Structure formats: structure tokens, C-alpha cells
């Protein structure tokens, strides 16, 4: 019950607030509903294809390939590829989070993670056209031209400041706590284990309700990296 409340707290808060405005300030209620409607419509169009592609990458694309093309040693080619991936993808930045996490878990570097996220957010071919329309060619192109190097610098800085282990799976020790279990999970929150997300699954494992074997994504990795993960789960 508590968990459900926590999970839906923002939606519940929104419903309460909308209720209040519906009663007292109906015009604001309708403006807000319209605004939210357009957000949700955008989300419904963009999320399904992005997530289907991400899920297919999870299942089909070998980690080797991602590591080679986007990993630490991918160099300038990897950075350019990241810029291209980010700028041809559709949708707002929150659609990028699950998709980029998939790439990261498969070995993309921290720097490329930031490059994809940022270019996904700022550099968008159709958006640039709209921007030219409203603010002029010079403004739009200068902004893009300055943003690209800025994004590359950002990738470099974040990589310097945040270690890979602080983002992804930690690879040490055996399970002492729920956090430990969680850190070994892919944290894709895919739900194939029938838990709503990886932290609930970790809790389940810790309390003995289920086993690590129920993690579909991890099972896939185990097959390809038996030696490494085998030592950890012993």
C-alpha cells in the first residue's frame, strides 16, 4: 500500500490539485488540461517506438558491438556516432533516459552517454527548422554550432567527475544488503521478472521471495560473461 502510494504520489498530487482548480478556477483547469494533453500526446507517439528499439537492442545487439563502437576506446568516431544517434532520435529528454541506459549497460562510455543525452535534448533536425522559422537562420545555426563543441566538453567533464561505478552496476562483494543486490542488476526496470522495477526485485531477492535467476536481462549477460558474473553470484 505504502509502495503504491509512493509510486503514484505525483499523479495523486496532480489529481488533487486539478480537482481544486476544477472547482474554484475552471479556466485555469482547462488551460492546464490542454497543456498536459499535448504533453501526453507527444509522449504516446514518441515513447513506444523509442522503447521498442531499446528493448530490441537489449535482446539482440551483443555488448561487444556497443563497447567497440561507443565504449571507452571508441574515440572520436564514438563521439560522432553519439552525436548522430542523439540528434536523429525523436522526443524529449525523458524518452532518452531508458534508451541511453540500455546503451550504457552494454558498454557505452560515460562521455558518450552524456553526448547522446545532450544532443538528444538540444540538436534536433526538425526543431532546428522550426527555430530558423521563428528566430532566423543565423540565430539557429550559431546556436547549433556552439552547442556541438559544448556537448563534447560536457561529456569529457562528466566522465572526469562521475565514475562508471557510480552510475552502473558495481562489481564487488557478495550481497549484504538490498542495495548490493540492486547494484548487480541491470537497472533497466524492464519488469520481465514480474516486479515493477529493479529495486523491488532486489528487495524480493533479499527477502527470498525470488532469485537472481528470474532477472531476464542478467541471465542473458551471464550466458556471454559466465566467468565474470559466475564468481560474483557464488
Amino acid at each position, binding site marked *: 500500500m505504502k509502495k503504491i502510494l509512493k509510486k503514484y504520489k505525483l499523479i495523486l498530487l496532480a489529481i488533487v490539485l486539478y480537482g481544486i482548480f476544477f472547482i474554484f478556477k475552471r479556466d485555469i483547469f482547462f488551460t492546464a488540461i490542454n497543456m498536459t494533453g499535448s504533453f501526453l500526446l507527444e509522449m504516446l507517439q514518441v515513447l513506444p517506438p523509442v522503447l521498442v528499439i531499446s528493448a530490441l537492442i537489449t535482446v539482440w545487439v551483443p555488448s561487444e558491438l556497443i563497447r567497440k563502437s561507443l565504449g571507452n576506446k571508441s574515440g572520436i568516431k564514438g563521439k560522432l556516432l553519439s552525436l548522430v544517434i542523439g540528434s536523429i532520435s525523436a522526443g524529449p529528454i525523458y524518452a532518452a533516459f531508458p534508451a541511453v541506459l540500455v546503451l550504457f549497460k552494454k558498454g557505452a562510455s560515460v562521455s558518450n552517454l552524456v553526448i547522446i543525452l545532450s544532443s538528444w535534448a538540444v540538436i534536433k533536425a526538425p526543431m532546428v527548422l522550426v527555430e530558423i522559422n521563428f528566430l532566423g537562420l543565423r540565430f539557429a545555426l550559431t546556436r547549433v554550432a556552439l552547442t556541438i563543441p559544448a556537448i563534447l566538453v560536457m561529456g569529457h567533464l562528466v566522465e572526469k567527475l562521475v565514475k562508471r561505478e557510480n552510475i552502473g552496476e558495481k562489481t564487488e562483494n557478495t550481497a549484504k544488503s538490498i542495495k548490493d543486490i540492486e547494484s548487480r542488476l541491470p537497472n533497466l*526496470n524492464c519488469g520481465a521478472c514480474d516486479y515493477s522495477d529493479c529495486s523491488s526485485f532486489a528487495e524480493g531477492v533479499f527477502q527470498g521471495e525470488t532469485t537472481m535467476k528470474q532477472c531476464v536481462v542478467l541471465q542473458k549477460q551471464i550466458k556471454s560473461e559466465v566467468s565474470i558474473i559466475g564468481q560474483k553470484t557464488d
Partner: protein
Amino acid sequence: MTTTIMIILAAGFLLFSIIKSRKKTKKSVMIAKQMFLNTFIDVAGIMALVGLVLALLPPDLIKQLLGGGSKILSTIFGALIGTVTIMPAFIAFPLSKSLYMSGAYLVTIAAFLTTLTMVGVATYPIEVRHFGRKFTLVRNGISFVMALVIAFGMGILL
């Protein structure tokens, strides 16, 4: 336009996947479905709240805040407003144009537009859930500073 291409691409890959292996496709669809539900629950509440805030904060007020005063101050304001709001492009660009028409600095508008999409307070909880607190704070912090750098760079170039 890109959305349509993405949908076609996703459908194409899915078809290819079905031909190759039904089992793997089923697994992919399950993963995608769960990711969708999770993201939807996360985002829907935030969107509803942002919608409400935007309804309460009419564009006119934003115009007032960004319209005048010192260049540096209004630019920092622009970056801050961009940070705390999410706005679909079809509102953001017309708003920026009318801001410019009513005398706001180009630098201010550039800062606003850049932080609007790159830095997110509203999407902060979602980002933390995916990447952890440290990464989210560092990325957003650096992005904010970079947005200001981009904006002032534009001030020099234009």
C-alpha cells in the same frame, strides 16, 4: 516527422525480429511494455503538474521577467526559467520570438532555449531513477553552466 520515421523504424526492426526469433521478440516486447509503463507513471504526474504551472504562469509573466533589465541578469533569469520549466517546442519558439520582438536580448533567449531542453528540474526524479543522484546532479550542473557559455558566446558572435 522524426517521430514517423522512428515508428516505421521500430516496426521494421520488430518485424525482422519476429522473423528471426519469436521467443526473443516476445521478450523484447515484454521489456518494452514494462519500460513504457514505468516511464509513463513517472512522467504523467510530472507533465500534469508542469501543465498546471504553465497555466498559472502565463507567457506574459515570463516576458516580463526576461524582457528588460541588465543583460547578464536577464540571461541568468532566462537560464533559470528554462531549467525549471518544460515546454513543447510549439510554445517555446513562438514565445521566444515574441520575447525578441518585445525587446529581450538574443543572449537571454539563447540561454532560455538551451536550458529548456538540456537541464531539467522537472525531469530530475526520472533521471535519478535511471542514472543515480551523482550523475544527474553533475550532468545538470555542467549543462547549466554550458548553456550560459553558449548563450554568451552567441552574444559575442551575433
